[in-house]
């Protein structure tokens, strides 16, 4: 069913562009159109996943846009389409405005994700990859009137594009290596180029997945509206970084070093960003750091070759995190802040949203029997087979996840006294924006759906039950978690969560600022770039001065030549006069000679005049001069010939 494949991409793409062009004229009709299109996209995505079609279209090369659905794609397509639909329903219920621009960009983004997931060749992949980045920029800066949003979008776009350069480099290296641009052929490249390709793709994946050292862009991306974070910064765009590495696992393994590098970077991110998450005092910042940390498990899985575990983690995390971001967004809209002190006990005020949030947070904590517990343990089982240190790092990451989740739960479900509550409402609410004091009931429906998904999706990674899923991904041989491992991680999560609920969390100043990653990159890369740019601009000024100086020197030279000419003229004139006088005196010379000399004199004089005129800057004279040079060149040519 290649029609389903094309519709799944074409529908949101065209609808998105249409909504963007139609602008404000559609107003609320935009929401209806957008939800309809998103539903159709989900339906076609399911059909495409079931029928596994393939299409080859010309793009940069005759087969540049090769799209196909295989096992990994088949599980991701419905996930992304479903989350997109739920998020759009939520945003529609919340009444995010202007509708045309928001829904248009979201649909365009969804189309780009659909292409990313199905692309089997580099040009199409890179194209969709960068369009995701650009729509993300526009969505982070959705409220462009606020000073903070656009610079945040710029940071996010610039950092991810810097990583994207890896794909450009890989595509170039694939040309040298003669392997072609098909993703499955990349691993067959030989020689040093294989390593360039692997490095390029690895960097691109790490950048999008907000892994170390790129993580900080995700912190800035939190300036975007809640639904944007729910789709882009949990289920789709960030997840695509993890997806790409899972997809390219053969390439990573073929290079020898890229697989372990991915595994270690993933594990490090799970730990470091876990610590960052633990120390945040802003709900969305905590969720962002946690997203990077959870994606760390996916990247770890990709490095280990644990496709099934990685895919299960991607899906379970997508549902869990989309839910948490949506609730955070709903609270932000309702009370105008996402700072923890202001959110104490907010779960009790809107119980449905609070309960959904609780379920999501428990899943994020890795508590049994919720989805992320199963998924994460499938990856940890694979890690234990490769290297105990990776397993240990993974366990630490899991413990941190339990800790920061418990921190959220402790705050959201705190039971402040009435006095304390009115105090909070008066002092701390509406500090970031004006709150509406309500969560529309239509907006809670998607929350419930996502909460159920976050609870049960772990089935994909339950030992014994995960057979069909593993077969779909061709991953039957991968290690499954044992009862002991599952029990160990459950105990660790429970103990850590209990400790945090009881004792609270430590505050680490460095971690609360994301370990200064952005400041470091500014100092190491951005500032030197601007300093160089300023220096080059000065150099350019000097070059200009040199050019005009040279021009002036030429002018001076012409002037001097001109004055020389005048003197020469005078000399000739003088000679002429002397000769003429002599002629007249001696009478031996013909008058004709005198006349001839007069002509010469006049001629020379007028020539001198001409040269002097040439310095007036009148363009016609320069042109005449140049034309004379041209004519001279021609004469030279004819003579030579």
């Amino acid at each position, binding site marked *: 069913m290649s029609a389903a494949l094309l519709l799944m991409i074409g529908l949101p793409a065209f609808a998105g562009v249409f909504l963007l062009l139609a602008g404000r004229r559609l107003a609320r009709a935009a929401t209806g159109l957008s939800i309809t299109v998103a539903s159709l996209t989900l339906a076609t995505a399911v059909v495409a996943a079931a029928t596994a079609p393939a299409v080859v279209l010309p793009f940069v090369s005759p087969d540049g846009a090769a799209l196909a659905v295989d096992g990994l794609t088949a599980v991701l397509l419905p996930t992304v389409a479903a989350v997109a639909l739920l998020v759009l329903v939520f945003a529609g219920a919340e009444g995010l405005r202007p509708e045309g621009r928001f829904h248009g960009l979201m649909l365009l983004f969804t189309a780009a994700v659909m292409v990313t997931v199905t692309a089997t060749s580099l040009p199409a992949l890179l194209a969709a990859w960068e369009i995701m980045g650009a729509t993300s920029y526009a969505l982070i800066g959705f409220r462009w009137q606020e000073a903070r949003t656009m610079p945040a979008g710029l940071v996010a776009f610039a950092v991810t*594009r810097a990583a994207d*350069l890896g794909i450009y480099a890989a595509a170039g290296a694939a040309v040298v290596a003669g392997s072609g641009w098909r993703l499955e052929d990349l691993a067959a490249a030989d020689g040093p180029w294989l390593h360039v390709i692997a490095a390029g793709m690895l960097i691109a994946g790490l950048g999008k997945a907000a892994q170390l050292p790129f993580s900080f862009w995700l912190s800035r991306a939190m300036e975007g509206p809640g639904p944007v974070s729910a789709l882009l910064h949990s289920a789709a765009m960030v997840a695509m970084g993890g997806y790409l590495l899972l997809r390219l696992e053969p390439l990573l393994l073929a290079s020898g070093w890229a697989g372990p590098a991915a595994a270690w970077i993933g594990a490090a991110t799970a730990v470091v960003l876990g610590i960052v998450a633990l120390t945040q005092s802003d709900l969305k910042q905590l969720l962002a750091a946690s997203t990077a940390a959870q994606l760390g498990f996916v990247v770890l899985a990709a490095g280990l070759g644990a496709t099934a575990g990685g895919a299960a983690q991607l899906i379970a995390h997508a549902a869990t995190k989309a839910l948490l971001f949506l609730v955070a967004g709903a609270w932000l809209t309702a009370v105008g802040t996402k700072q923890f002190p202001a959110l104490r006990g907010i779960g009790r005020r809107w119980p449905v949203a609070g309960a959904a949030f609780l379920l999501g947070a428990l899943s994020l904590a890795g508590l049994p029997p919720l989805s992320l517990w199963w998924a994460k343990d499938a990856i940890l089982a694979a890690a234990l087979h490769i290297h105990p240190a990776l397993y240990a790092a993974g366990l630490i990451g899991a413990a941190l996840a339990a800790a920061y989740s418990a921190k959220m739960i402790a705050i959201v479900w705190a039971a402040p006294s009435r006095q304390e509550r009115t105090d909070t409402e008066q002092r701390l609410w509406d500090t970031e924006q004006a709150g509406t004091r309500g969560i529309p009931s239509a907006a809670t429906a998607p929350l419930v759906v996502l909460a159920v998904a976050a609870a049960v999706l772990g089935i994909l990674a339950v030992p014994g039950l995960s057979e069909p899923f593993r077969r779909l991904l061709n991953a039957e041989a991968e290690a499954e978690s044992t009862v002991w491992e599952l029990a160990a991680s459950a105990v660790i999560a429970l103990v850590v969560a209990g400790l945090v609920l009881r004792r609270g969390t430590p505050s680490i100043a460095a971690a609360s600022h994301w370990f200064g990653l952005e400041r470091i990159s500014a100092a190491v890369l951005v500032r030197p770039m601007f300093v160089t740019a300023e220096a080059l601009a000065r150099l350019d000024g000097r070059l200009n001065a040199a050019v005009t100086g040279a021009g002036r020197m030429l002018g001076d030279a012409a002037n001097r030549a001109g004055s020389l000419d005048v003197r020469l003229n005078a000399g000739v004139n003088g000679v002429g006069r002397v000769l003429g006088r002599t002629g007249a005196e001696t009478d031996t010379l013909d008058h004709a000679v005198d006349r001839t000399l007069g002509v010469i004199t006049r001629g020379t004089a007028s020539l001198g005049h001409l040269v002097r005129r040439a310095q007036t800057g009148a*363009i016609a004279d320069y042109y005449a001069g140049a034309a004379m040079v041209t004519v001279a060149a021609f004469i030279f*040519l004819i003579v030579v010939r």
Partner: protein
Amino acid sequence: MLSIILFFPVIVGVALAVWRGLPARAGGLVWLAATIIDLALLMVLTATAGTGVNGLKAEERVNWMPQLGSSYHLGVDGFSLPLLLLTGVIFVACAIWSLRENDRPRPQAALFLFLQTTCLGLFAAQDLILFFVFFDLSIVGMYFVIAGWGHGNNRRSALLFFLYTFLGSLALLLGFIGLYLGADPHTFDMVELSQRGAFTGTPVAAGFVLAAIVLGLAVKTPTFPFHSWLAPAHTDAPTIGSVVLASLMLKMGTYGFVRIAMPMLPDTWRSWAWVIVIVGIVSVIFGALVALVQTNIKRMIAFTSINHMGYVILAVGAAGVVGRNTAEAQQLAIAGAVTQMVSHGLITGALFLLAGVFYDRTGSYDLGKYGGLAGPAPRFAGFFAVAAFASLGLPGFSGFIAEFQVFTGSIGTVPWALLALPGILITAVLFLRAFQRVFTGETKGLSVGFPDLHRRETMALTVLMVLVVLIGIVPGPLLGMIAPAAELLVGNLQP
């Protein structure tokens, strides 16, 4: 047919120039009609013309100066056809833009019609003398555009432009004469000169000839360090003058590389390709970095032109590095270079039109004097954002097609081309920074009460941007047009 397309604009231009009684508004309409008819004829020619013996379409040849081995020889192929079509489109956009011009509209229309003929003639010429004549006439035309309709320090800028590019053209002429002398029998015919072994001189002589030609073309393109004329010329040129200058006249330089320098001196090109590659990489990075710190919008766009033309130079240089199994990469690089010429023409044309809106409304190009402009002028903001993203090479627009091919092809023959990759990152930062400063945040400064785009402005921009998107999504037809010529050139470059 080709001659009609060439000279139709200038004939209408002469008529406009002498017809004093014509009302100003009607003059603009006549101009627009002429450009549309010319573009329509061009499209008919593209669709119908068959390929002749020399691999050229719509070939025409009339004896002109037989004793000099020069003839009136026209013809189009995969390199010239896209640029001819680009010329047609750009002048249509300029004519739409100027429908309500108040400053001497009739002479301006006449001058631009003259310029159109010179641009078309240059891209269709198959004789070096003819090429040179159009090359120089375009410089003269542009001088009058800048000096006559420009603003600011326009006379000085026009003179600098004229002298600099004219000196460049003299170097080019010397090179042409060298080519003429090197051929046996002596000829200025470009088809004959492009045949294998046409240049019979010593390698040293060939080196000097190539140096002269490259110098002339490098000034016109312009590449670092011959770009000093570009920024002042753009800053002080009228809006549509900047458009023609950036969209078409810069292409004359880069077109010269693929049309003259590479096929006529292939051996020498191969020997010196590394120099070209270095100049290309330096231009890319230099142009991007200097653009990054500009505060004048027109200067900024001018420097991004140096960056974008740098990709072309990089690609044509890399295409000259021949090794085992590099044919595919070379072809990619050349196709990328030509696509970039078209793409840059359309995108930068749109950007200069948008820059003109600033001057038109407030008289200031200063980025710092605006803020939150998206509020009063949302359509303007939308077009600027789209054009900026197109210029920074976002997929979905033509720039990506060009740059992806340029990079993959160049890296395919010269791995050092990787060094140019940060260019697309820096352009991204500079465009988005400019956008952010001017259009977002609180509405302040000159943005207050800024009128949004008029209908004719929207129309002209739409014409350009629709093509940019079309090429970006369906590049097949354009690439198919370029491919045969690129293949031929790659064959020519094989030792």
